[in-house]
């Protein structure tokens, strides 16, 4: 077997705890890499209000978990600005699935991520980050507000807590397994 890398995407709106989650479970200090933006990638309007530096690169944070000698898992946080969809495509292509983090105070900031993975039929779980305090809403209330499909797992996660993050990843992989088409179950 060749050395194989697998990807998990960590998505969600700005400030939902993506980088914190990656940091909690990564075996390396999370790294940041930059991708160049070409003029074709970003509309002129999108650049309004950004500094020169921000208009030429987009930063990606990621971490790593070595599963065994042959398999290594990378956790990629989506760029903080949801408009960089071209980066999402590269991150999501071939990914095991995604964790979509939400902050219950700003549910709307995660709509775009949910929509993205639903449309592409990429397995994802919803992680309700409890970083900001107690459970202010029930699972049903959150599912209703987000129009979440019944099969999508919803988990309460503390992005600062390694065990909580690990359980979220385990749930995602189980969910991905449950969604394998029959012909792939060999």
């Amino acid at each position, binding site marked *: 077997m*060749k*050395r*194989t*890398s*697998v*990807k998990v995407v960590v998505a969600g709106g700005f400030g939902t705890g993506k980088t914190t989650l990656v940091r909690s*479970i990564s075996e390396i200090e999370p*790294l*940041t*890499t*930059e*991708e*160049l*933006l*070409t003029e074709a990638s970003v509309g002129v309007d999108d650049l309004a209000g950004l500094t020169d530096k921000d208009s*030429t*690169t987009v930063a*990606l944070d*990621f971490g*790593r*978990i070595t*599963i*065994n000698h042959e*398999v*290594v*898992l*990378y956790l*990629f946080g989506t760029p903080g600005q949801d408009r960089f969809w071209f980066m999402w495509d*590269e*991150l999501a*292509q*071939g990914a*095991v699935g995604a964790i979509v983090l939400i902050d219950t105070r700003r549910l709307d900031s995660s709509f775009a991520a949910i929509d993205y993975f639903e449309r592409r039929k990429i397995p994802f779980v919803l992680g309700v980050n409890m970083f900001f305090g107690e459970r202010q809403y029930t699972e049903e209330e959150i599912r209703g507000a987000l129009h979440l499909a019944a099969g999508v797992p919803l988990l309460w996660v503390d992005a600062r807590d*390694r065990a909580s993050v*690990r359980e979220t*990843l*385990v749930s995602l*992989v*189980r969910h*991905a*397994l449950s969604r*394998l088409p029959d012909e*792939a*179950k*060999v």
Partner: protein
Amino acid sequence: MAYGSWPGDDDELGKLVPLYVLVGGRTTPRNTSLDLATQVIAYPSDPAALEPQYRQIILSCGDWISIAEVAAYLDRPLTVIKILVDVLLEQGLLAIGAPAQQTVINRGLLETLLDGLQRL
């Protein structure tokens, strides 16, 4: 032109030859299966014979490492590293693992992943 905007004040890298010259004007890797998570490793070679940009990559790849990590450690944009890696692959100086985005997400791989995560 994105590469034309690359700052030339880097102390260790990039000050001798513009990157777009080094890569022969390539703007995308010819090996389109290169993903940011694709694993690469250096074959034994004499890095001293290489241009600094290539030498840095070879020296970063003593053990399996992802393209994204190489880019992060060398503080280079992903696209630039992908193109340089692509050239090194063609020259037979690097080997790659299974391209991440072509990985067939199969039951065996997912179960390996599940086992590994549960052992963390």
